[in-house]
């Protein structure tokens, strides 16, 4: 009985090793459609955790707070640019 249990345990271990190494071989030939499908599933399963992220941490966010006042004046060069438009 013990011997059978050990055999089963070893078999289980070999399944992990075999499956892992066979996955490495499969990875190189991964079907494009399969990756696209996997990514679609990722989008669905990740949706709620993505939405929970604050917008401030996502791309296209202005990382700045309002300042006290800006009284920048147009330089001569900039004024010429606007004159040329008019």
């Amino acid at each position: 009985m013990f011997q059978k249990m050990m055999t089963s345990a070893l078999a289980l271990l070999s399944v992990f090793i075999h499956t892992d190494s066979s996955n490495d071989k499969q990875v190189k030939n991964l079907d494009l459609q399969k990756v696209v499908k996997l990514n679609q599933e990722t989008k669905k399963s990740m949706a709620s955790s993505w939405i929970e992220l604050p917008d401030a941490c996502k791309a296209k966010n202005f990382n700045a707070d309002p300042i006290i006042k800006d009284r920048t004046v147009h330089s001569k060069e900039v004024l010429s640019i606007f004159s040329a438009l008019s």
Partner: protein
Amino acid sequence: MNTRLRTYEIDEKTRHELHDRVKSLSQVTPLSYDFSFSSLLSSYGILREVGSPNDETARFLFDSTTGKVVPRSSLVGRLVKMKNSYGVEIESTFSKSLEIKAYGVRELLHPDYSFNPDGTVKSLVIFPEAVFKIAALKGIELTIVRDWAINSIFGGFDPQKEYYQTNFWELENNDTILFARLIKNKQLAFLGTHDFIAHVANIRSEPWEKLSQTAQSVEMKIKKIIAEVEVPTIASLILPYTAGVILDDLAQPPSYDSKNHNLVLDTVLESIDRNDVPANYPCTLSKFPKTFEQIILLSRSKMKQDKVIEKAKELVETMVREIKSSLVYEGMEEKIGERLFSRLLRGY
């Protein structure tokens, strides 16, 4: 409304024509290619965001009398035309006397139409052709990025909705590479309010040499890990996305030369370089890693640099573990189940 400026309405036909024209462009096209077309496109892109959750100017517009930020819902916009130049006018129905509490925006506004006699702002009148030329004074070229324009201005994406849609597109399309390429070449997109206020307002030329080199490094390292993979899995794009958010910050004048941003970015790039999350893992990701937010906040913090380096390493390692722990290998569970069952049967 400034009555000296003519309103220009885009009808459906013009919109289609603009869309078709954008589709025919190469990926990155300077606005100077055709100012009439590009200024209409950029103005339209800005207009679509005005008053929406995606309007990045909104939180910087204050009523000069009360000192309070004007309600986002009070912001309205229209396209305007002056000779052959198209522009966009943004105003608030709440206040005709605005203070813009962000550096450098005033310089980008048309001096004849935007200001009250006391110097406050009555409306933001923006002409992309002028903005292009002002940025050019600093050595930066403003561009139309075809895929971004298609996605944000003409896509099914509704700018009135939350950020979620645009931003996820940026993650799954590995946008960081394209963004890094622009910055490397001292270019910026000019398609919406983010570009206007976050990148072009208060633009300075001096930091761009180093910024360009940083961008080159980002581009190179990401390209390396996806080189042999036709479509990377989304899990593998999270580190590049993280690098992209930090690089976007670095390309904003308030964060130019930020040491902490650079330190955290270096740590993220090291992880990418090590291929910690390979591009070809056959898997789905069950959740977006929570550590991402902490990494971004760390880059924006005022923490001492030696502590930042240590913390960045810890957080990036944690994020990689978090990504890997939520991976679900496709087919793995079924295979183990079958084999275990058959082995167990044989064993007994």
